[in-house]
């Protein structure tokens, strides 16, 4: 195994086998585990360790920015910057300001959510060590993979490979530098 290795990538036969393997390796004390699946497998992320999922918070924040921002813009334009008297109606006609604010709430919430999902997942990303492995192409078809990272404190190339092999994977590859 070369010095600049990123660890081992093991392919498992289905979501169930992957979940079992991930639990075993966590029990052995590995913390830098990553699992790759062709669809969202429920409960897998929690097995791998604590998850920071702040998407709901970001969406809320975006919605508040869009909604209150639009209300403020309308209020500022209609009351401060350019008041127009239309049939004696109040300058700050709040009910009439709601529709645009509602639309912008949803637009900003969606935009914040999408940007947040991409940023939190480290996307967009042009290259990645795993893209160098031909076998990894199956991840978007029917491949279930577990990556034992070399930067794990417990990682020892030989021991890690032995630990993986005990879990009966379909194949093991070295993740090159």
């Amino acid at each position, binding site marked *: 195994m070369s010095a600049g290795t990123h660890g081992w990538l093991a392919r498992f036969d289905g979501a169930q086998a992957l979940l079992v393997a991930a639990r075993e390796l966590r029990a052995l004390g590995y913390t830098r585990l990553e699992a790759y699946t062709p669809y969202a497998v429920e409960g897998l992320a929690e097995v791998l360790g604590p998850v920071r999922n702040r*998407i709901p918070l970001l969406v809320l924040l975006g919605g508040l920015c869009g909604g209150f921002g639009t209300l403020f813009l309308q209020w500022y334009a209609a009351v401060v910057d350019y008041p127009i008297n239309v049939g004696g109606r109040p300058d700050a006609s709040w009910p009439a300001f709601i529709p645009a604010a509602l639309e912008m709430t949803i637009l900003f919430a969606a935009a914040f959510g999408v940007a947040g999902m991409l940023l939190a997942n480290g996307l967009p990303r042009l290259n990645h060590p795993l893209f160098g492995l031909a076998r990894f192409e199956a991840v978007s078809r029917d491949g279930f993979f577990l990556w034992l990272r070399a930067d794990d404190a417990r990682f020892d190339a030989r021991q890690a490979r032995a630990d993986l092999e005990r879990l009966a994977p379909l194949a093991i590859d070295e993740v090159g530098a």
Partner: protein
Amino acid sequence: MSQPLLAPRETDATITDAVSDLVLERPTGRLWLFAFALAFLLTALLGSGIVWLLARGVGIWGLNIPVAWAFAIANYVWWIAIGMAGTFISGGLYLARQGWRNALNRYAEAMTVFAVAVSGLFPILHLGRPWFFYWLAPYPDRMGVWPQWRSSLFWDFSAIVAYLLVSILYFYVGLIPDLATLRDRARTRGKQVFYGLLALGWRGEARHWQRYETLNLLLAAMAVPLVFSVHSMVALDFSEGLLPGWHSTLFPPFFVAGALFSGFAMALVLGIPLRWCYGLQGFITERHLDNLAKLMLAAGLFVDYSYAAELFTAFYSGDRYEVAHALQELGGAYAWVYWTIVGCNVVAIQALWSARVRRSHAALFVIALLVLAGMWLERFELIVASLYHGFLPSSFGLFYPTLWDLAFLAGSVGLFLLLFLLFVRLLPVLPMFELRKLRARLDGEGA
């Protein structure tokens, strides 16, 4: 009906190969080329119409006072309405955990994006000086003026902008894992780079999936109220006016029901040839078409109820202008439009009560086309039959469409078709990762 949503023999690999091969391996068929050529010609017609419009102004259409809104606004409302059902199929059925959504949501979302894009052209072209359309947006300009916030036209503008952008985001986010599949399965360098860039480096890591699923759920939860609000704003364009036939609180729910009605019809009109041409019978099953037909019938009944409520309210109000408008509708110059609408949107859809009709694809296709025609005519009737017959008898006046009016209508269909045909060739028409997840759920796999 207990037909399965997926054949039991399907695996993750067969699902993925079947859908991605349509894009990567299947040669461009003769039928596709023929349809593309037709759509391209119609789009060219629209393009030349736009050039002529920019040179000569909106007078090339048959617009005049009193009927200053006609085909352009009818086209706009019709197209944006068609988009609504795409979002509803994708978002609403996702929230309701309807497994049958998964074979339909991708092409329904594509339909939404394209329909909204086409519809957005019409209010801009109708402005008179379309090159100043950005004056609608609030931005700090040297003129020192702002849009009129109290106007429903500004509400409508913000609704279209929000709807177009959110549906593009929703569509694209939903595509990312499938673009990664195309990247991984593409065999030529060009395709690998093209899909690789679009996939943004998606790898399917478990924690990525978790955030992704959260986002999808939230987007669905926001898209459904967005659909209802956007079409309500479109309705407010009318009901904020004082014209008899427009000035009604019934309009927002009536418009939303009509939008879903015509959108389900378009989903059928696109889905039936799609599954037939690309052999997708295993994914878009009889059960899917049956469910769509039932939804179309349900939405249609809402629309029919609104027709009845509209007439009832007019007579019940005792308002002489409202009553005069209702009588005009039933027996005036545009009565033939009204009765055609009744034929399409009230009578024709009653056949959908029969399971035999719902199982016949030809019948479904024809009924869906009738509904689309009926809904276009309804928008036309709503606009023209109200405008031509206002408060003052001396200002009554009929509307006569010009050839350019017809060209813009046909051209907009062509542009929509062109975009949809490109989508079918370049992107997966079914969401592969959702189908894989559905497969896992049907097989009883899980944590």
